[in-house]
């Protein structure tokens, strides 16, 4: 199942719509950089982090954990049968992380100083933010190196191919280490907030919970992508179905662990009552927990007949759960004092939508032109 470009036309209704969304985001983005936050966003002194951080960075890099999660499986657990899924997963990771990194700049008031955090003289090594920034930056570079064989195959760069062939093990090791560090630190960022995060979400176990859910998200996103690209590019899923099935199983057990730790922690911290008495927050908590529990039921219950649809829905539910978990922890569960309020403004949302659109468009362009998806079709014999 050697990877190959799937070819085909670039201009389609989908890519056109994506392009329009990207242009809209570019328009609002220009407004933001020229006239400041107030012109486009609702973030304020009480809520300095809005969806540009909660979605574009925290969720965006979480959704981009496919490469990380698969690398754990393929290279660490040595389960080589998953290798065909590696390239599409890596592609999504490359885009997710690169755009996540870039979108931080939208959220920086004095964005022209963004390079300060990468410069040793400006760094403060007690800061979680520095750790996240350096780690994410390093990982973006590592991801591009990990992905470079795809480009080398397409453009025929023998030097790159030789270098990566020889040293790839090193970058793969880094590619497993770095996300472990910063995905957990995305949780540590909230620990620093202390009392300002509602007890349903504030815990010293935040790093573990964020890491667990990031890995689970990684598997879910691989399943999700496999299904969507199968449906979208009109390919058959038969070859990937066994892989999807076993990945889903791993994900389900990770979720079991997550749910046990999450609930156990809440009870142990004495926040049990908060699950029922916190109004909207309790409601959001239960929606989140339901979305976490659903895939477990779908994937582990003996009475469910599992097919591609079930795997897809389970992955969707898992992704929604993790997305909601992050939004809840960063925005819903964040209480900075009476009177403060935040809901993203329309232009603010449009920028985020544009970034997502850019990711999807990039994915489409890449799989059409580069050897990313595992090749299969009537003309190939396996």
């Amino acid at each position, binding site marked *: 199942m050697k990877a190959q470009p799937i070819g085909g036309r670039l201009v389609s209704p989908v890519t056109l719509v994506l392009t329009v969304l990207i242009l809209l985001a570019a328009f609002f983005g220009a407004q933001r950089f020229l006239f400041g936050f107030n012109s486009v966003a609702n973030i304020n002194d009480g809520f300095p982090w809005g969806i540009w951080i909660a979605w574009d960075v925290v969720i965006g890099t979480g959704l981009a954990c496919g490469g990380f999660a698969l690398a754990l499986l393929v290279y660490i657990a040595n389960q080589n049968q998953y290798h065909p899924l590696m390239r599409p997963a890596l592609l999504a990771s490359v885009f997710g992380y690169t755009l996540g990194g870039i979108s931080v700049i939208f959220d920086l008031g004095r964005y022209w100083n963004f390079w300060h955090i990468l410069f040793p003289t400006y760094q403060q090594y007690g800061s979680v933010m520095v750790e996240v920034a350096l780690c994410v930056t390093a990982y973006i570079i590592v991801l591009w190196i990990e992905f470079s064989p795809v480009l080398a195959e397409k453009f025929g760069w023998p030097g790159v191919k030789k270098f990566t062939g020889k040293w790839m093990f090193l970058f793969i090791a880094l590619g497993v280490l770095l996300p472990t560090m910063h995905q957990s630190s995305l949780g540590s960022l909230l620990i620093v907030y202390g009392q300002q995060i509602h007890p349903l979400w504030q815990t010293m176990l935040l790093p573990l919970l964020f890491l667990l859910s990031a890995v689970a998200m990684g598997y879910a996103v691989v399943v999700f992508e496999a*299904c969507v690209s199968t449906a979208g590019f009109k390919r*058959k*899923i038969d070859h990937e179905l066994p892989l999807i099935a076993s990945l889903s199983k791993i994900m389900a057990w990770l979720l079991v662990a997550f749910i046990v730790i999450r609930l156990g922690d809440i009870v142990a911290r004495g926040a049990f009552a908060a699950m029922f008495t916190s109004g909207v927050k309790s409601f959001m908590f239960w929606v989140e927990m339901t979305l976490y529990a659903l895939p477990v039921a779908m994937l582990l219950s003996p009475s469910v007949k599992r097919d591609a649809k079930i795997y897809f829905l389970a992955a969707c539910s898992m992704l929604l759960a993790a997305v909601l978990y992050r939004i809840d922890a960063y925005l819903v569960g964040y209480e900075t004092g009476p009177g403060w*309020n935040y*809901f993203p403004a329309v232009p603010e949302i*449009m920028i985020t939508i544009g970034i997502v659109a850019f990711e999807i468009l990039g994915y489409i362009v890449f799989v059409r032109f580069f050897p990313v998806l595992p090749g299969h079709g009537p003309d190939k014999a396996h």
Partner: protein
Amino acid sequence: MFRDSIDALEAKLGLERRTFLKFCAAMAATMGLPKGAEAQIANAIATPAKRPSVIWLHFQECTGCTESLLRAEHPTLEKLILEIISLDYHESLFAAAGHQAEAARYAAMEANKGKYVLVVEGAIPVKDGGIYCKIGGKTALDILKECAADAAAIIAIGSCASWGGMPSTPPNPTGASPVNAIIKDKPVVTIPGCPPNPYNFLSTVVHYLTFGSLPKIDAEGRPLFAYSRLIHENCERRAHFDAGRFAMEFGDEGHRKGFCLYKLGCKGPETYANCPSILFGDVGSGSWPVGTGHPCFGCTEKGVGFYKPIHQLADVKNVVPPASYPRVVEEQGVGATLGSAALVAAVAGLAAGAGYKVAGNLGKDSSGPDKDSAE
């Protein structure tokens, strides 16, 4: 022996020992000298090896510097000055006049060659060969050069000698120039001010007397102990500036309440001097221009005093006021609006729809192995 010499001083000046030691401590504190320096100062004054000879020149000036020195309220200040130095030439204080006075200057210069302290009061006209100020048939320019040649130290007292002062106000018809524009081969300590605070001058002299060297100076030649801080920094009205409370015109409510004079043109924010710290005339708090309700006009600062109109706003040098003050009621963010909620709902709906469609197609696909899945 030290005690004896102080007792002798007490008898000679009619000055109590305690008062004298307090004065020495005040001098040391004014200059920011370390502990123990007051004893060194007391020792240097009470037991002078030889009182340093001082030649005091007057050029284009009003004698205000001398006046402020002599009329200091502190009863013994002028006595002390006259005791610790040997004032060998000073036109305002001389009993002698004419050629007799000039002869005294030459005698002092000759006797203390290379050791005397030269104090210059007033600017020096340099236009047309310096003909606009002459003493005994000699131009100020020549007299200055003559006296500076063998001086051990040169002190320019007052704004005129320090940077040109009032006589140099544009169009400066006489080409009035400061001492350090003419004497380039020797360091010139400047004590600007109109008039300068007598303590700043006295401290400089005492420093020279005690340690044999002049105090540290800034780029303009001003002793750092007196001129390293903006008036604005130590001003008693500073809190009003920071809070945005200003007198808007003389005699208005803000002025009567002692608000900040910045908007009346106070040059405190761009003028370096220690006026608010050491005040004038030894009569206690408030005894300095801003304290009495008049804006500082920047007399110690070249390009400010006698140059900028009194009512012109100062350039705030080191503490720029904030562009805006915090609002009383800070905006606390906007909740969901119809548009944003609708957009989020639309995205969620679209995602759900797309998911449903993909799921449907997948179902079809896995049942029919070779059929294309999506429409």
